């Protein structure tokens, strides 16, 4: 038996191809939406991978340093480093801000990394694509390629200027903002140090406060003002574990003795995926549902219209003894073929368009496979309306009168 659907498609291939392209662009958007979600998850995982940490020590009862603000004293790392099972502990700061270069600025995550041996101290960029790591204690920066900065560029971060000495790749925040690595002391300043006017006004307020400016206590005012202009805080301490030690046991010891909150890698993944991007994921999920419904409606309408165009032929086919299942199969095969054409166009367009999106779009094969299956199911369901109509066609319609 010949394929009636195949012959019909070949006969009206232009109609099918153009309809398939239209549907394909819609499916391409759907695939990109799924890719945006995957990209967000991957950005989160990249953030954790790039930190190089096994444990994150943060302010007690917070979800820091990525999902909530966290502030702990910058001397805590020494005590943590001395605990059993800890290989290395290093302070880290994270600050999302606009990093300026001349008249342009780029949304970035500024990461303050503690000094030490590269590769041993967590938090440093693990590899460079060009240039070198920071070697000075101040005013040097390593930036992600996505910032668009080049080696030798001069950046402005708050009050200070920095020279780009190295470039790295896929070092991004959970929001996809590219990272700018600077020395920890500079980052602490950038986070807390205010401009000159604010400092001056703050000093005046402190001076006017009788609690801090007591005539009988010389030196108190100077001490208070000195404490206000320095920043002894960081956002977290990154910890690596010695081989053979259980991260859970080390984390429990830190929690118990340092009275801080400690997250392991799985816990941090749960925070990033389950909490930080959960709302965005639900938003994307809603879009995917809407796009699926729109796709189904379009396919149903197209197949219904194509079937309506063939009512007389269907009546003739039924009159001359064609089985209902043969007619139903013809309509369903056309619907599936339309879905396949649409998916191919969508996959190709999504693949070519993904690099041009400002945020990372990760198209993974399993999503494409699931997407293809969903498209086939949608097309099969969408064809049911047309099949029902075709089966109701009276073969007597082929006979006039």
């Amino acid at each position: 038996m010949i394929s009636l659907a195949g012959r019909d498609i070949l006969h009206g291939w232009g109609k099918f191809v153009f309809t398939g392209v239209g549907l394909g662009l819609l499916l391409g958007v759907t695939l990109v939406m799924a890719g945006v979600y995957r990209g967000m998850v991957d950005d989160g995982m990249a953030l954790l991978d790039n930190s190089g940490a096994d444990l994150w020590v943060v302010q007690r009862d917070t979800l820091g340093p990525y999902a909530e603000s966290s502030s702990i004293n910058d001397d805590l790392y020494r005590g943590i480093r001395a605990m059993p099972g800890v290989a290395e502990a290093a302070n880290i700061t994270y600050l999302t801000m606009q990093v300026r270069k001349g008249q342009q600025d780029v949304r970035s995550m500024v990461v303050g990394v503690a000094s030490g041996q590269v590769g041993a101290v967590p938090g440093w960029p693990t590899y460079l694509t060009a240039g070198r790591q920071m070697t000075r204690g101040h005013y040097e920066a390593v930036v992600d390629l996505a910032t668009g900065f080049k080696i030798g560029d001069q950046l402005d971060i708050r009050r200070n200027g920095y020279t780009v000495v190295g470039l790295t790749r896929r070092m991004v925040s959970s929001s996809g903002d590219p990272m700018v690595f600077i020395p920890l002391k500079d980052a602490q300043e950038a986070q807390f140090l205010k401009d000159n006017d604010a400092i001056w006004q703050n000093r005046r307020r402190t001076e006017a406060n009788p609690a801090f400016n007591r005539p009988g206590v010389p030196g108190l005012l100077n001490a208070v003002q000195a404490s206000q202009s320095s920043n002894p805080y960081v956002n977290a301490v990154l910890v690596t574990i010695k081989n053979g030690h259980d991260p859970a046991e080390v984390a429990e010891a830190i929690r118990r003795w340092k009275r801080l909150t400690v997250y392991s890698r799985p816990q941090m993944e749960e925070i990033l995926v389950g909490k930080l991007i959960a709302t965005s994921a639900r938003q994307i999920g809603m879009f995917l549902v809407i796009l699926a419904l729109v796709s189904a409606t379009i396919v149903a309408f197209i197949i219904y219209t194509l079937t309506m165009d063939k009512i007389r032929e269907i009546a003739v086919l039924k009159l001359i003894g064609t089985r209902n299942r043969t007619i139903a199969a013809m309509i369903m095969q056309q619907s599936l073929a339309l879905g396949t054409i649409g998916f191919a166009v969508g996959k190709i367009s999504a693949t070519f368009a993904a690099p041009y999106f400002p945020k990372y779009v990760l198209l993974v094969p399993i999503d494409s496979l699931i997407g293809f299956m969903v498209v086939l199911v949608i097309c099969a369901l969408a064809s049911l309306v047309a099949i029902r109509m075709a089966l109701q066609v009276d073969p007597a319609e082929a006979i006039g009168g």
Partner: protein
Amino acid sequence: MAGTGIRIEGLRKRYGSGDTAVDALQGVELQVAPGEVIGLVGPSGSGKSTLLKCLGAVIDPTAGRIVLGDEVIYDNGWQVRDLRALRRDRIGFVFQAPYLIPFLDVTDNVALLPMLAGVPNQEARKRARELLAALEVEHRAKAMPAQLSGGEQQRVAIARGLINRPPVVLADEPTAPLDSQRALGVIRILNDMAQQYQTAVIVVTHDEKIIPTFKRIYNIRDGITHEEEGEGRAVL
């Protein structure tokens, strides 16, 4: 089954019920011998199409008897279980418009019926080409229906109606869209094919050009058939 005819006895068809009931057929009597072509004529609303639909097993008669060859297929109820197979294998249809399947070429339009009956594609196409050759349209075997003239399309439609060698062919105004020459050509073909395949052919028509060609005519009025002698004019 080729070589058998069709006999209709007291066929009735009532649409609706009660006060609104309409008796479209009121005891039709009709018989067509194998190899014979008869005309079925009558004004609009006389019951021609209803009779054709009953004979084509697409609507159920209300009462009566239909004998196809030696087999009673309807006797106050269908006697065959699979009406679809009955239409496919034992009744040929030729319509007012050819109604060829636009996405199949000429050969496959004709070969589709045996294919539906389970005949292998190659065999079905071979039979189709033989029939197309007999109808002198073999040279258009690969053409699509839209590329054919009206006469060619009607000949292909006749080939489709005859491909399964049915004992009866129902032709519904097969010459309506054609000029005199082509109309007479179609009747000649139907006569030739009826003779060749010993098929009974019932031609429903209004066409004054072809009515004189029938040897026997059934005139249907108010759902009752009246047999008349035709001129039986030869078609050259």
